[in-house]
């Protein structure tokens, strides 16, 4: 590297400038100073993402049924042109059936807790950055979605809104390492803090008092403490108990109820009855 050479100096100048620019952008964004400008860019990108995801889903659904495709091919040999129409109709009905099942599950979930106000949203993207677990949904501030709102699916809690633009929002999943949710066990009633495990997919319920006898298979749900999440939203089940008598607390490994890889439709809980703990914070 001969730095006396003018083109070399320009080259390294550009590299240094871009690295400096990236550092500056990171600092500005993490302090929230780019929010307005970025939301302006993110909205059209979310529209592109939504369109691409819809096409991808259609393609994946078609590829996921090879046996039916083989049957369809045999029929094509026998019935030629007519079967093309039947195959198309079959695929459409299958997709509708899948969507109907998802909507039925969501409806049943909504019926279990009618006191919560929800907005239905479609998952249009997933973060692929290693170590970060988040999704992008197609509802934003114009639909009443705000930062911090809980997000659930038919089977249980998904996460909370991390960032919201006018027409889309980023949701940080409960399995992300930065996630910490007050939770309670269904049978033993022990309460603790549920932390995301990051890549493993499972979570850890910590700070559980040793007086409770935990059991594998116990249901874990939100406790509602802290007021950030409603009570009794299912989260998952205990798969392993880590109890050491020498320690002050025990912990449990929790498998989430939601399959985050196949999430298509979610609920954003826009309003719920928070536990009122303000009376305890008053200084006499």
């Amino acid at each position, binding site marked *: 590297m001969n730095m006396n050479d003018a083109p070399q100096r320009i080259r390294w100048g550009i*590299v240094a400038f871009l690295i400096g620019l*990236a550092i500056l952008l990171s600092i500005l964004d993490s302090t929230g100073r780019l929010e307005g400008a970025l939301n302006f*860019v993110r909205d059209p990108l979310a529209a592109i993402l939504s369109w*691409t995801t819809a096409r991808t889903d259609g393609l994946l659904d078609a590829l996921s049924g090879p046996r039916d495709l083989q049957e369809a091919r045999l029929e094509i040999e026998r019935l030629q042109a007519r079967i093309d129409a039947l195959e198309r109709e079959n695929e459409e009905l299958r997709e509708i059936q899948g969507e109907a099942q998802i909507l039925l599950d969501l409806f049943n979930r909504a019926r279990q807790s009618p006191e919560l106000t929800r907005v239905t949203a479609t998952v249009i993207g997933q973060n692929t950055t290693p170590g970060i677990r988040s999704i992008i949904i197609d509802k934003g501030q114009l639909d009443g979605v705000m930062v911090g709102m809980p997000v659930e699916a038919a089977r249980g809690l998904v996460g909370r809104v991390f960032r919201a633009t006018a027409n889309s929002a980023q949701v940080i999943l409960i399995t992300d390492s930065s996630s910490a949710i007050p939770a309670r066990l269904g049978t033993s009633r022990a309460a603790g803090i549920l932390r995301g495990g990051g890549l493993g997919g499972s979570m850890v319920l910590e700070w559980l008092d040793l007086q409770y006898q935990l059991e594998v298979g116990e249901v874990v749900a939100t406790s509602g403490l802290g007021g950030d999440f409603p009570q009794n939203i299912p989260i998952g089940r205990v798969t392993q108990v880590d109890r050491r008598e020498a320690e002050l607390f025990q912990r449990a490994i929790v498998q989430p109820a939601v399959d985050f890889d196949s999430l298509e439709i979610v609920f954003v809980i826009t309003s719920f009855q928070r536990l009122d703990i303000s009376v305890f914070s008053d200084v006499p």
Partner: protein
Amino acid sequence: MRVSVYLAVPLMLLLAVLETAVLSRLPLFNQTPQLPFLVALSWGLLRDLKEGVIWAFVGGILLDLFSVTPLGLTPLAWMVAIAISILIIRPLTSSRVILPTLVAALATILYLGLGMLLLRLFGYQVTSLVTAVLLPMAVLHALLILPIYWLMYLADRRLSPRRVQV
């Protein structure tokens, strides 16, 4: 050089959308390869380190727009990893198979390590990342870069055909 920079924006936008909407649903061996990263790396190997860094900047910024990480963090990790790995490996070999494979493996390890360090600096908790992802991602990227490098080589030949003296 100018044409390649203009090409970087639409190509990286396309790759960022593909990465977020399509590849995220089709993981390979439980890992999602970072396609824009591999394309920027290949371009840096084929053309010039500076161009690879510019492509990494554009691709990283676009990918960060779909991510919860602070804008600029991914391109920062990519640029540093690409620059260091090319500088280290390029003098060792000129083979069109060994060079991209080694650079991809080293750049991936550097990018993930630096990325995690930066995430921690910005207050994100990433714990088991190194052990769980580093090696499989490095191997996956080292394999995947070969077809990508070849495609980028063809694109490079089209953009700037070599002069031959007769």
